[in-house]
Structure formats: structure tokens, C-alpha cells
């Protein structure tokens, strides 16, 4: 009762805000199934590529980056130099630089330890869902609780799925294609972000470029696709604006 009185609790982004935490959990809930399934697939892939169970468990708990892990596995199997694996992981993770640049201004005032942890556990889907609700970095009560409500269950379902995958190992038949559930989850997050002509154009260009440039070494195709998509979205947006100001 005391907490709910606005006079007693000074409004602060960092204060725990129960309704926002619950709203975050609720928003993220449907994606957890896909995340868990995706984790399961990566867990299975790690064991099948020859990692021991402790190594695979260590990798999932410490690294927490599905696509970077998947990219590293064939390189480990091929005895690639460690710096090559590092660069590959950096490039595969580059999209997170963009995500963290979008998210960081919202929480710049928090202590560095908290920023380090929050950044480390922020996955694609959680960031996209958060930015859908809070597009502006202006401070708002409950923002941090909402983000935590998205991030922590997301982390937990990834780890549960991944550990299950490591332990189940080769039992699951590969033709089930469980990773497809992860792909479907990403589509559901992507669709609302694709509102408007510039964004739609960006998504189509990024998709096409990533397919065409898929053969590039070190997963550079992914980076090229994101850059090409963003540039074309921006060009379409600016052109539309110019036309509007000319006619309007």
C-alpha cells in the first residue's frame, strides 16, 4: 500500500515496478517457446559437432549467443586459428552493437555492473519487443522492470532449452527441424517492425543480400545485408520526404 502511493516512492527508472515487470514477462512469453526450441537445437548441435558435455554446458552458460556459437562449431571442428573464431563471432554479433546502441541511452544512468549484465543478456527478440513499447529513451517509471521482465525469462528459457539439447544429444532426429520454431519467432518480431514503405524495402533488401552474400567468409554476408538494408530504407524514407515537401 505504501509503495503504491506516489508521494512515498520517488519515481525512478531503477525502482522495481511490479506491473511493468509482469507486462514485460507477458509480452515476452509467446517468444519463449521459440527461444527454448532454438536453444535446444544449438545444444544438440554443440554435442553433435564433438564438444564434450562439460564443454557444451560451459559454452551455453558463458557465451549465450546462439548464432555465434553455431558459426564457431564448424571452425572448431576444422581446427581454425582462435583469432579467426574470435573475428567470426564479432561479425556475427555485430547486429548487437546496433541493438545496444539503441537500448543503452535508455539506461545510461545505471551503475556500470548493471549495464554490463543487462547488455550481456539482451537478445534480438527482447530488444525488438522493448523498443516497440518504448521507442524514446526518455526516462519512464517501470522501464527497467519491463526490460528485466523480457530479458530474464528469455535467458532462462534459452538456457533450459540449450542444456536439455546438450543432455539429449543425438536422441532428437534432425529431420524434426526444431530450429524452424526459432525462425518463426523471429518472423513474428520482425513483422510489426516492418510497418511503412522504407522499413519494408529495408527488410526485402537485407533478406536478398544476406541470401546472395551467404557464401562470404566469416559470415560477412550478414553484416553486408544489414548495412544494405538500412541504407536502402533510409534512401526510400528520404526520397518520400522530398517528394512530399515538393508537392505539399
Amino acid at each position, binding site marked *: 500500500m505504501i509503495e503504491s502511493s506516489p508521494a512515498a516512492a520517488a519515481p525512478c527508472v531503477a525502482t522495481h515496478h511490479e506491473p511493468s515487470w509482469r507486462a514485460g514477462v507477458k509480452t515476452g512469453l509467446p517468444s519463449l517457446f521459440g527461444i527454448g526450441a532454438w536453444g535446444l537445437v544449438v545444444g544438440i548441435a554443440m554435442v553433435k559437432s564433438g564438444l564434450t558435455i562439460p564443454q557444451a554446458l560451459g559454452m551455453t552458460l558463458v557465451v549465450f549467443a546462439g548464432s555465434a556459437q553455431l558459426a564457431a562449431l564448424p571452425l572448431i571442428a576444422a581446427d581454425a586459428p582462435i583469432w579467426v573464431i574470435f573475428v567470426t563471432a564479432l561479425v556475427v554479433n555485430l547486429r548487437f552493437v546496433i541493438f545496444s546502441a539503441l537500448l543503452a541511452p535508455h539506461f545510461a544512468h545505471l551503475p556500470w555492473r548493471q549495464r554490463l549484465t543487462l547488455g550481456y543478456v539482451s537478445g*534480438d527478440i527482447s530488444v525488438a519487443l522493448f523498443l516497440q513499447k518504448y521507442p524514446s529513451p526518455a526516462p519512464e517509471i517501470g522501464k527497467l522492470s519491463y526490460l528485466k521482465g523480457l530479458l530474464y525469462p528469455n535467458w532462462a528459457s534459452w538456457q533450459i532449452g540449450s542444456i536439455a539439447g546438450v543432455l539429449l544429444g543425438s536422441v532428437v532426429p534432425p529431420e524434426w*527441424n526444431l530450429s524452424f520454431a526459432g525462425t518463426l519467432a523471429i518472423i*513474428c518480431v520482425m513483422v510489426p517492425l516492418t510497418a511503412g514503405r522504407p522499413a519494408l524495402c529495408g527488410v526485402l533488401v537485407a533478406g536478398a543480400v544476406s541470401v546472395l552474400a551467404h557464401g562470404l567468409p566469416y559470415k560477412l554476408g550478414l553484416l553486408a545485408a544489414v548495412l544494405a538494408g538500412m541504407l536502402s530504407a533510409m534512401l526510400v524514407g528520404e526520397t518520400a520526404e522530398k517528394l512530399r515537401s515538393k508537392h505539399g
Partner: protein
Amino acid sequence: MADWEIWVVIFVLALATAATRSGFWLVGHRVTIPKRVQEMLRYAPACALAAIVAPDLILAADGQPVLDASNLKLVAGIVATVYYLLRRNMLETIIFGMAFFTALRLISVI
């Protein structure tokens, strides 16, 4: 690779994750992003997600693009996208998409 080398790789991968994910959180407030770049970043999440999803939907196991109905993932992906556009429910879409994909797969085996 020796056991210790794999542990070094795991550490290095963790470092790459921390650098890319937490870098801006730690130093971001000292860096100002130009307005044009900010404008571009607005479109980044959708583009990055598309870049992750598209190869999975379009490329066959041998790395060749397949754009006809024999590509079951592509068909199921399009159907699931339409389902999501109509219903706007992620969990329903994932279950429906997986069921549809599995049905296609079983039919094509027969």
C-alpha cells in the same frame, strides 16, 4: 583441438559477446551518434532479423537458393507470416507454423 584450446575458444566467444552487446552500454553515453546514423539505426533491428531469417528460409542444405514449392521451409514460413498478419499472436503462429511445416514434410515423404 585440445581440451584447453576449446576452453580458450569459449572464453574468446564470451569476450566477443560482451564487447558487442555491452560495449555501448558501458561507453555509449560518451559517444554521440550523428542524426543520419540514428535515422539508419531505426531500421536496423528489422533488417538484422531479416538477414538472419532469409537464408534459413531460402537456402537449401547445399547453399543453393530454392524459390519454388519444393522448399517446404519457405512455404511454411510464408503461410505462418500470413497467419501472423491475420491473428497477431506469436505463440499461435509458432505452433501453427511448426504443425504446417511438419505436415508438409510428412506428406512430401509419402
